[in-house]
């Protein structure tokens, strides 16, 4: 049977509707980012800490940041952080952490996570199920 792009889209929509997508997202975020250690915090937590530290550094450098309009400054800081693939967040690692050479590279991390072939397989499997079910439904209707 021939499928085309639209079917692709429809299937992915269905998949998302079933909630698999969000689950994946959550998993990635909440998984410990460092596979080696056991008691490491989830990725999310790490990220937050990183961000907070960065901001504190910035404030220390320039005290006036606080006194300004908070919304504005936060937006500005945010944009600066996100720039260049989270370069600021990445580089901080070298200074603050005493632990050796633990690189905190956000985008790399995410990328690696996504490239995981296991992940792909899981997705495929789920898609398969979804497709079957959807086709079953379609058949049921007609």
């Amino acid at each position, binding site marked *: 049977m021939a499928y085309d792009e639209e079917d692709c889209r429809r299937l992915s929509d269905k998949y998302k509707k079933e909630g698999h997508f969000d689950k994946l997202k959550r998993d990635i975020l909440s998984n410990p980012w460092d596979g080696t250690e056991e008691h490491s915090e989830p990725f999310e937590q790490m990220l937050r800490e990183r*961000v*907070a530290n960065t901001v504190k550094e910035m404030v220390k450098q320039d005290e006036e940041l606080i*006194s300004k309009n*908070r919304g504005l400054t*936060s937006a500005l800081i945010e944009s600066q952080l996100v720039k260049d693939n989270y370069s600021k967040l990445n580089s901080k690692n070298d200074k603050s952490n005493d632990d050796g050479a633990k690189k905190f590279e956000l985008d790399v991390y995410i990328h690696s996570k996504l490239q995981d072939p296991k992940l792909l397989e899981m997705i*495929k499997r789920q898609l398969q199920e979804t497709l079957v079910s959807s086709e079953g439904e379609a058949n049921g209707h007609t």
Partner: protein
Amino acid sequence: MSGYYRRTHPSSGSYRHSQEKPQYSRSGQYQYPTEHSYQQYPSQYSQRRRYNHSDVSRRRYNDEHSHSPTNGSSRHSYYATESSESGAYVNSNSDIDNRRGLSQSRYSNNNSHIAPSSTSERLRTDSALLLQQRPPPVLRYNTDVLKSKFHYFDPTKGEFFNKDKMFSWKAADKEFSETGYYVVKELQDGQYKFKVKHRHPEIKALDPRNEDGILTNGKVASHRKCRKSLVLLPRISYDRYSLGPPPPCEIVVYPAQDSTTTSIQDISIKNYFKKYGEISHFEAFNDPTSALPLHVYLIKYTSSDGSINEAAKSAFNAVRKHELSGCFIMGFRFEVILNKHSILNDIISKFVEINVKNLQKLQESMKKAKDKEAEKGKVKEAQGKDISLPKEPKVDTLSHSSGHEKRIPYDLLGVVNNRPVLHVSKIFVAKHRFRIEDFKFKLRGYRCARFIDHTTGIYIVFDDIAHAQTCSNAESGKLTIMSRSRRIPILIKFHLILPRFQNRTRFNKSGSLPISAHAPIKYESREEFIGATAKQILKDLEKALHVDIKKRLIGPTVFDTLDHANFPELLARREINEKKKKQEIASKIAEDELKRKEEVKRDFDLFGLYGGYAKSNKRNLKRRNSLTMDHNLKRKKLSKGIKPMAHFLNEETDSKESTPLNDSGISRVSKVEDEEDENMTSSSSSEEEEEEVTDKKFKSESEPTTPESDHLQAVKSLVSDQNESADLLDTPLMYKPTATEIPEPVYPPEEYDLKYSQALSPLDLQNAIKDEEDIHILKQLLSSYTPTVISNTGAILEYKTWKSRRQALEEQKASDWQIEHNGTSFDSELQPTCSFKAEGFRKIADKLKVNYLPHRRRIHQPLNTVNIHNEKNEYTPDLSQREESSNKEPSDSIPQEVSSSRDNRASNRRFQQDIEAQKAAIGTESELLSLNQLNKRKKPVMFARSAIHNWGLYALDSIAAKEMIIEYVGERIRQPVAEMRERRYLKNGIGSSYLFRVDENTVIDATKKGGIARFINHCCDPNCTAKIIKVGGRRRIVIYALRDIGASEELTYDYKFEREKDDEERLPCLCGAPNCKGFLN
């Protein structure tokens, strides 16, 4: 044609002759004249004459001897014959005969009617019998005198006395022809005269219209224009006398083309046609077979009052407007026609047929397509893989004029965002100088999303392809816009640029253009399909992750981190710093105060009493003014103004850098010119700045950061280091240098300085000496002069000085009050030279009274003593301002917003009408409950004593020109009542007239009952005018402002009384205007 002239019979005879012989019978004879030979004579005269010259009859009469039995019948029968000749009398004869009995009939017997000759003898015998019965007649008037005069008839003889003297007019008088005559009024010798003309009955009458030789073969040379074409007659309104069917009031609207892929709502059609008239019936028709809308509509118009003409007119207009080109509604063309001869059904059936046909076609094509596909499918399967051609979107685009495909310029890609676009090239647009507004206007019927003006042309963006296509189909090549360069309408062609992809992406930037698949890819196997889907999902996941991180994680974290609570040390440090600063500032101020006080103490005490500090205040003011210039310049350097946001973060780093610059700048200055002056300015400016700085507000809402204050401190320190003498900072403000062109004395000028004419009082002299320096100089001056002291004069001198001092003070007070209340100082005449009592009685002219009596003043001076209830007028003008100000100064106050705009009034009116309708429905008296609309528009005004006359009306707030102020309310009376009242009031002594004419029959009387508008006085140069407007169907008098009126200004308008002839009736006008006419009437 002349009129006939009737001549009355010269003699009508009622005469009686005494008859001697009653034997005559004339009755019968008198029938003879009814021979009818002359019956056709028109003239009565001729009739009568006829009788006279009927010799035949007379002769017969003479011969005869038989008489009618009635003696008196002769005369009677005379009447009878006479009467018998005229038609009317014939009947009376017959009547009389019927009445005949044995009694005497006064008139001749019935036999008289019948043919005379045969019955004559019988008649004679009968009349003789009758005559015998009656007594003989007594003739009384047969005296000679009378006989000669009158035309008597002898009853005894039976003939006229003057018979022989009579003759036929025919023979004698040649003037009148035998056949008759007529009289014509002719122009003879310049006069109209009556001419007698013979009648020629044999000549046929001629049609005078054909005379004068114009008549030629029946062709009449008429003076009417030969019309080449039919004349347009006005439409005759249809009423109950009209014949034929009533004019059509319905129109049928149907789509013009077959492109009926319409998604038009019925309501838009209805609204479109509403503008032609009131719609009573609107019907949309659906296809009976498919229940789809046909978009055929029947609209019936009606008119508010039910007249069919209005409705017909609306329908006619609606059709006429769209006769040439159909109407455009929402991008689709419709035709509009009148529903005559029930054409509606034809149209509907037509459309139904079309639809059926279309359906059939569709079905056939579907079948064919299916067959084809089946074939294709087979082929494909045989071949295996196949790449189908990219499907063209099912549109019939207008071919592009140029060969290459039009592209949307890159910078517009984001704006256009993958939507269909109509393009008009720039060359074309520029040549004719078209603008977007032209296109906007012309294409307003279509649902265009956006109009873009670009260097390559004009782009019209649509959200939907269908819209774009319909628009281009309809308009391209047909739309004309007036060219601005050539001033002729130019046809416009649009190029339709279709969207490139099916999916619209939000960010259509260059990166994503090549990415998304141009052609839909087909996946043969499931696995492939699933794999592809999985990849898609991964991509989505990545995007989603990033977004999530940004939004949910980073953002809030940053925000929270910036909270002040996180940095307690910082905050603490901050606070300490600020406290320090505040203390410093406070100490500074305290120092300044101390210095100033010292300064005051240094002055001579006596003069200090008389306002030394006051003067220094003034000096301060002046100093401030002169310093502001420098200050502003400084400020500009220091204030950062508007900056782009990105620099905001950088600001802090910059400010630190800038301060040393400024510092160095100042230090440089102070180094170069090491004079007191410069330092003074800088230090004083720094003082000023400091004070300003604490008031300044930053953009941030949190505590104000004062980089300037840091800077100032730096400056201060610099300056203070540099200056060696501390006195410089401490010198009183008075002595500080000023930046003026010419050197000024330290003390401000006194009154006596300004007015040289005034004599100096000892007080002034005392005040002149201000400080030690002056005393010193004075001493020097007077050192040579030795005073001669007279013992006596000591006390007097003292008294005199005291007196003069008192007087001066009093005068000063009085003049101050005068100026405060009345605006101008006293006139010189009013100034008392000696004691008031000593002056005696003198009359002060009215002109002078204006100066100090509030109700006497000229109205052109704005009134400022109007006391209204709680409000006190606190208007105390500045001296200088008063001198300059003109009388109309309040008008340049801030223009007030009009309290009720026209729209407000209109909505109020509607609201009121609703209320009234409701109240009417309820059934209560609407008059009582009606709201006086005009009340709402009333401006705040108040009555008070007037400068013109007695009481007047004053405006409390300023009023803009052409605004309604107040309504003239009063009793509404008729004209005669008004006249009566006017007289009565005059008799009662009410000199003022409060009668205001509405129209020629109605007058409003506000004498005893009315609104405060009755207080408005007359002026020959008014600032208001009265107008009559209709509110709720009734006429009302309303006062409008002619020009802007200031607060507390008296309202005046022109009464427009009629000019009185009598000089004593004229009333003098007290308005005081420059162009006053002098009289009210």
